[in-house]
């Protein structure tokens, strides 16, 4: 006993630390559910995917659907718009991506994006023919003035990234699955 006491660390020190450690783990385990309950719940997570038909959308038209409570922009681009998107030099882009990287090969006319500005989350204008389309003929976010081009790439304004692409899959020629 006496030699143990002088050596600095004692059984008692060990027990203090061990008790403290178990206590900390216990508190952590009790607090975690109280925090995690704030994360998206099972009913929200279950809305994982949707399917829709592109057939009714004419060339040059757009429409918006909802996926996980977020707007999905679908645009049936004209030949001229595709050509315009491809002609943009990479040096002009803040978040460089070729037009081909943003569409499904063989389906270049269909641009399908999450319609949420990558700045602070407003829904950009440009889906309706009467909307402002910004300086690059695509979409314009009115909140703080971000301009997106006809491939949904950020060209001007505070948004840091291109409009995000959701996971999509063509189930047939016109049926698309998002999610």
């Amino acid at each position: 006993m006496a030699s143990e006491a002088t050596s600095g660390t004692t059984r008692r020190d060990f027990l203090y630390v061990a008790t403290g450690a178990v206590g900390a783990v216990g508190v952590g385990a009790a607090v975690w559910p109280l925090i995690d309950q704030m994360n998206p719940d099972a009913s929200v997570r279950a809305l994982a995917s949707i399917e829709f038909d592109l057939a009714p959308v004419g060339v040059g038209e757009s429409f918006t659907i909802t996926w996980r409570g977020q707007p999905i922009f679908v645009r049936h681009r004209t030949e001229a718009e595709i050509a315009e998107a491809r002609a943009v030099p990479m040096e002009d882009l803040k978040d460089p991506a070729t037009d081909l990287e943003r569409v499904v090969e063989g389906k270049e006319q269909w641009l399908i994006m999450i319609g949420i500005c990558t700045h602070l989350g407003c829904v950009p204008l440009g889906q309706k023919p009467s909307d402002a389309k910004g300086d690059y003929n695509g979409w314009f976010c009115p909140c703080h003035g971000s301009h997106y081009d006809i491939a949904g790439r950020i060209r001007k304004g505070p948004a840091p990234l291109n409009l995000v692409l959701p996971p999509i899959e063509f189930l047939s020629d016109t049926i698309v699955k998002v999610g």
Partner: protein
Amino acid sequence: MSGNSSYNPTGAVEKWFDERLPILRFSKEHLMDFPTPKNINYWWTFGAVLAFILVIQIVTGIVLAMHYVPNSELAFNSVEAIRRDVNYGRIIQGTHAVGASMFFAAVYIHIFRGLYYGSYKAPREILWILGVVIFVLMMATAFMGYVLPWGQMSFWAATVITNIFAAIPVIGDPILALLRGGFAVDNATLNRFFSLHYLLPFIIAAVVGLHIWALHVPGNNNPVGVEVKSSHDTLPFHPYFTMKDLFVIVVVLIPFAWFVFFAPDILGHPDNYIPADPLLTPPHIVPEWYFLPFYAILRAIDFDMWFISSKLGGVIFFGGSILVLFFVPWLDRSKVRSGNFRPLFRPFFWLFVLNFLMLTYLGAQVAEGIYVLLSKVGTAYYFAYFLIILPIISRVERPAPLPASISESVLGKAEASGEKGQ
């Protein structure tokens, strides 16, 4: 500040009580007899105004919560029902909504008072820091309250403000999911905001308690910034300052009542009377007026800096504009508290006030042309004032001579020394 207790329990019951729970003694010392500098001016009444408005918000809020429904399908209509159907609901809801604006008007006056008279300086640093904590809690409370009516501005304010957290590298996205409880702002978000909007005012009340505790250790600062030297410099809080505070509360109630009765919606945005639509952002979203200066700072950063994107940059400056307030006691090194004796400080201070008003104006304008440039200039001055100007002038400035005591500043030298001779 004990030792000035004049509490003498009269009678056996009071004495018995005092020995067990000296709450009457405490109240007498702190709410009635507390020695208060006799020269404090009307800018010192806004603390009491703030306490009064906090009580109004809590009382009207609890009543609103008896009728409000925190559900994304029902919330909008439940607020409309409060305004139309509930007995006196129009006035109670109006008081709560206008009360938030009055609260911020009062807190800005209170903060600028502190900045001018150097009330943040030793030994009042903790008092000041607690004040900034209250300010941050107020902003969180008002933001979440504004979301509750679930109009277009509610929804898009919630979207934009929660998105601010997503700019934080690595942990941003998990925080965003945690705040919203979904992939977008939705019913889950509304529910938790209601819960927290109910909670935070009580946390504010607790911090206000600490704030006043920290005030009652050194006592009030005053317009000349010279510490209290003797009992000649002070008057008891009651009735001298209770009455003065009450007078100002009545004066503040005049515009308050005018808004509630005649223009309850004028301080809000008409778009908030359109129910929330997650697929349609209003063409021009603006926060409530009291957030505009900080919103202007957020938007002013529309360019990348080194590896920091404009989005993260905006958030850093936005957060920094409030965080910097915590450090003011150490940024301003001048020993002289009151701006009245600081000739070099004064013009920069008033420029800061004007600049803050300009930022308020700019926050409501569209982010285009000259407004963007002015926002950048305003943001630069806001930070320069705290980080460059205050540290430098506190070194180079030659302050005007200070009066020897508060009494001397009030009565003049001869009279004050005469008083001492008595």
